């Protein structure tokens, strides 16, 4: 059945060999790159924080620290700063890291073990309640509700923000936990979050996860987070 091909370009065997070669190399490269990436994406430890080593995915003990998200002039985008005592928000100049603590549910001495347990429960809850089919996390998920990547840093939850005021709580973490347990009691818009039966422990764990997630280095996503205030939307 095989006609004699007249040119290499119409030879099935040439294309079959090329396809095999290309697929093989691409697959091997992907595997090598994956090893490298996995190495860089391991969760950090409390020791890293003590030694002031920056990790892409830090240790869960970051919940003991204040977290910022500021422009890094060298990398050209915003990066999370953990426990930065002197962050100049205008220039983004950071002169210290892993120093300034911040209480999380009244404590800033969560041990590595405790913090890990909290994060573990938080992640399980996030999956069990299917947060990702309304929200985006690290930008992936559904588009029915706000992105949660840096939700911990959202001005709406700060002490002057409307969301914290609405729940009547007097810290960010308490406000978030209160909201999560009864979201349909604290509507901000006609589109509300449903009641997912989140318990107080689950809520605390989820908030811990959100704080931890805000400290992940996402290469500057989302851009300009919370920086542009009072922009005018004339067409609204």
């Amino acid at each position, binding site marked *: 059945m095989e006609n004699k091909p007249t040119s290499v370009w119409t030879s099935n065997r040439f*294309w*079959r060999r090329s396809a095999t070669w*290309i*697929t093989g190399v691409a*697959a091997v490269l*992907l595997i090598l790159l994956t090893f490298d*990436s996995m190495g*860089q*994406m*391991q969760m950090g430890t409390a020791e890293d924080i003590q030694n002031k080593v920056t990790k*892409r*995915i830090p240790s869960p003990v970051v919940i003991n620290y204040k977290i910022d998200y500021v422009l890094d002039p060298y990398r050209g985008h915003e990066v999370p700063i953990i426990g930065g005592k002197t962050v100049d928000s205008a220039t983004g100049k950071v002169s210290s890291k892993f120093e300034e603590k911040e209480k999380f549910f009244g404590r800033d001495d969560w041990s590595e073990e405790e913090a*890990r347990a909290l994060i*573990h429960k*938080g992640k*399980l809850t*996030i*999956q*069990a*309640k*299917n947060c*990702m*089919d309304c929200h*985006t996390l*690290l930008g*992936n*998920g*559904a*588009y*029915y*509700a*706000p*992105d949660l990547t*840096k*939700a911990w840093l959202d*001005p*709406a939850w700060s002490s002057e923000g409307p969301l914290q005021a609405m729940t009547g709580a007097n810290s960010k973490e308490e406000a978030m936990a209160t909201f999560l347990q009864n979201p349909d009691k604290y509507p*901000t*818009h*006609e*589109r509300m979050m*449903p*009641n997912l039966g989140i318990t107080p422990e689950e809520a605390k*764990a*989820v908030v811990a996860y959100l704080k931890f997630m805000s400290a992940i*280095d*996402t*290469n*500057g*996503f*989302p*851009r*300009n*987070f*919370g920086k*542009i*205030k009072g*922009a005018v*939307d004339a067409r*609204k």
Partner: protein
Amino acid sequence: MQGNRLYEGQKLALKYFTVAIVLFGAQLLFGLIAAIQYLYPSFLFNTLDFSIARMVHINALVVWLLYAMIGAVYWLLPDEAGVEVVGVKLGTLAFYILTAAVAVVVLVYIFVQVGPGNEMTLWLITEGREYIEAPRWADIGIVAVVLVFLYNVYATVLKGKHSGILVVLMADLIALAGLYLAGMFYTDNIAVDQYWWWWVVHLWVEATWEVYVAAVGGYILIKTLNANRQVVEMWLWIEVAMMFGSGILGLGHHYFWIGTPEYWWEIGALFSALEPVPLVGLFVHVLYDWGKERGKGNSIKNIPAFAWLTVETFGNFLGAGVWGFMHTLPQINLYTHGTQWPAAHGHLAFFGAYVAIMISAIYLAVQGKAGLKEMKMTKAGWWAISLITVGVLLMTVSLTLSAYTQTMVERGMHGATWEGYFIAQANKWFVQGMGWRLASGLAVVAGYALLVYDLLTVTKKQPAEVTEGEAAVQTA
């Protein structure tokens, strides 16, 4: 095809196709619910929330496409290999087990919905990871069923003829099945979690499924146009080279912002930018073959199947190629990531690349079942393809408008905050896009109803005698 006598494997294919079409209907129904909730948020609030509607919508999509894909393989396998499918009894048993499992999973999704935050929920209710939410017990069942399927394919091909199409399919299906394993484990580290999650999602739709489509598309061309096998298989290898060459490392376009190293910017941008190239190739190839066969005065043996194949090549190129490229460079993706952009692209890409070709394969099976030499388009079939295609195109355009607004207002102007999100959602342009999406969704549903009707009746509506030549003109 050989008159009315079908291979047992082909009868099994018909079962898979039937469930596929039913699940397609469920997909559209739940998509409609989710689309209504965008405009009227109180609709089914706290009863069947958006997250549940959306989960059923996208899971039904993935599952029915897999059903149809398995069906199409069982259809063409005995035909290509020239022997009956080995292990068809086992395959039939696997079909019933899978279908029972899918029914249980869907019922649990709809009636149990969510669980407490512990491992048990991931095992029994949902894993809560977009597209592959299926609980772990079902994952394991799926793996078992797929192993049976793979065994049948391999054993059959080894016994019969090894056509180029079958060789490509065998290699591709192994990769496709193996990738599913990458999405089956749990980790606290959300960055690592999403890294492997994309191995499943991206390496499915932008590598292994695309190659699957190229192989099955080649088979449909041979069946509908009598295309030259030698040429079809040469194209197939070119497609494999270009799709895997760009698609495998193109995976990097999902590794821009999830805690991954910066070098993925470059890799993801430039490899995925080449992904549209093979899709243009596929498109050109089909049109070229069509023109060539028409020039020879040959008729199209199955007009609906061929028409849907044309929709697939065009839709694949437009939805995956053009709409994918629009947001694949990191400079743009920084602002479009996590907005309606991926939704606009996802709808046209899934429809264009996969839905259309699966419907084409089903029409081929309908013809084979009735033992018709030629099959023409009916009025209902014509309306079905038009309503569905125009509906999805319009939906994509509407979502793109909303996406622009969201990108500009929420991301550009308001720094991506909670407040910025809701300001953009309330924007007039955004809301109108959502309205048009709902309207076009209704058109798709109408088209679906006609499609089902046509699949059931098309063979009875064929003219008594189809003369050569006339059939070719019919498409015009």
